[in-house]
């Protein structure tokens, strides 16, 4: 009857998002008066999960699961859910988990609520609050099926530490055949990704050209942040499409979003509304982004950003 949470890892190491969904699972389990079981795939060290409320870890180690395959992963998680008789299955909002969740919902004949931002307000009926209308509104959604699947929005619930111990068990599910094969992966491994980032530093057309991105990257480095850009910047080819933030680009749900030289078109704002705090640096005091921002600096990015970098370096050195 335990709540099952799929805790993702990257190259054997648990992702930060895994700890957040574990924290969320603990909150759900407390409401239901049950325990939390985490299922991990090819993860080297799962000891940290106990700190975030996990009671039991099902470790799956299998060479056949080294390359991500949504259909096979969904089948494996289904087997774990059945083994634990789980009524609630929780996943993150990573690209991979959002890929798995609808397949898992069909496998388990379960209602699925994605982009969930709070613990359930009620478990009978099972009611959750989620982002909708590209973060311009919330929807309170009731899941009617016996088994429920929840996709937790990044950085919405946060990390909640607790005390406790977790038992560990090896789990060897059967592995499906699939003719979906990964041919190549092109991934920047030494950079913080937008999906995992607490802070995102984003540049717009106000930066005048790709040759000026060095200061955006330096500011991101100082803050341990990911870099992003507005749509015109990716359309102009100054930055890769994968950095485009907005309605048709990547959604950002960071704790801090820093927009530099971005005026704040409605499509861009829709993609960043879920960020908790927004700082805007722009020469134009009338830029619409200032209306959506928490903090603002009216000034030239080419003088403000280098100075901000130096001041942040000094601040970090004193921390």
């Amino acid at each position, binding site marked *: 009857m335990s709540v099952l949470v799929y805790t993702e890892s990257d190259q054997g190491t648990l992702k930060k998002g895994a700890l957040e969904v574990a924290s969320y699972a603990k909150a759900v389990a407390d409401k239901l008066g049950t325990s939390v079981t985490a299922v991990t795939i090819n993860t080297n060290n799962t000891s940290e999960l106990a700190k975030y409320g996990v009671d039991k870890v099902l470790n799956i180690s299998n060479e056949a699961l080294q390359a991500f395959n*949504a*259909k096979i992963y969904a089948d494996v998680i289904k087997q774990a859910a059945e083994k634990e008789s789980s009524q609630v299955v929780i996943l993150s909002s*990573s*690209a*991979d988990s*959002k*890929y798995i*969740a*609808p*397949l898992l*919902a*069909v496998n388990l004949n379960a*209602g*699925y609520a994605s*982009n969930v931002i709070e613990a359930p307000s009620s478990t009978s009926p099972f*009611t959750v*609050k989620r*982002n*909708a209308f590209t973060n*311009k*509104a*919330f*929807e*309170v*959604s*009731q*899941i009617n*099926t016996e088994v429920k699947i929840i*996709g937790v929005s990044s950085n919405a619930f946060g990390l909640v530490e607790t005390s406790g111990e977790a038992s560990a068990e090896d789990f060897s599910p059967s592995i499906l055949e*699939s003719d*979906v094969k*990964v*041919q*190549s*992966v*092109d*991934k920047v491994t030494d950079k913080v*990704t*937008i999906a995992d980032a607490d802070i995102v530093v984003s540049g717009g057309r106000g930066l005048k050209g790709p040759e000026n991105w060095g200061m955006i990257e330096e500011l991101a480095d100082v*803050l341990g942040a990911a870099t992003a850009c507005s749509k015109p910047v990716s359309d102009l080819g100054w930055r890769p499409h*994968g950095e*485009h933030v907005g*309605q048709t*680009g990547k959604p950002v749900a960071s704790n*801090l979003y820093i927009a530099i030289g971005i005026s704040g078109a409605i499509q861009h704002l*829709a993609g960043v509304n879920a960020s908790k*705090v927004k*700082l805007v640096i722009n020469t134009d005091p009338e830029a619409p982004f200032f*209306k959506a*921002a*928490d*903090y*603002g*600096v009216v000034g*030239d990015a080419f003088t403000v950003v280098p*100075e*901000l970098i130096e*001041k*942040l370096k000094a*601040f970090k050195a004193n921390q």
Partner: protein
Amino acid sequence: MKILVCISHVPDTTSKINFTDGDTKFDTNGVQFVINPNDEFGLTRAMWFKEKQGANITVVNVGGPETEPTLRKALAIGADAAIRVNTEATDGFTVAKQLAKVATDGNFDLIIAGRESIDYNGGMVPGMIAGLINANFVNNCIGLEVEGTTTTATREIDGGKETISATLPLVIGGQKGLVEESDLRIPNMRGIMMARKKPLTVAEPVESNPETTSVKFEKPAPKGAVKLVSEDNLDELINLLHNEAKVI
């Protein structure tokens, strides 16, 4: 190749979002509806297949008669036929069940849906169709080539992209990147005239109980005014981010 493009009828990006009936229903008053942007990229990619290597394109939507102008627009862009499944799009699973039935009945090779709609943002319909009809599935698809029954798809992943091979039938959750935005089609007068003669079939829905129910909607609390900091006082900005917002 038979291609099914799933079209969601959504409020235009710039629409004001309001609710009626005690915040239980989306207020359509004064709202312009459009083809869901992620679906529009998919439709344009389907047109590319039609023009370069031959394909027949059917567009499908789940919804009432008010969604037909959106289907007609897709026909004017170049789709060959349209199907409207005559039921309210209450929840993602129900919509996926309707679309899976259409996909099975029409024996389609390639089913293109947007990775998510810009209204409910569920992100579940393409994957659920694939699960229901047991077809291969690629989500967040930003590139697609088809040769015979073999496809090569590029998918956006966190921090990069990956290239995948899969055989047809295939369902994709598409997005920007499938085609460039500058390649999106605007219906011309000839297309609009031709669309009037193309078949738009109304199909009756399969029975389905909603797996999820929308209880009510809420709007975010009004935001306070921005705190402006002088560019000559960036220490104060760092102080605010550290001590007030607690984000650095």
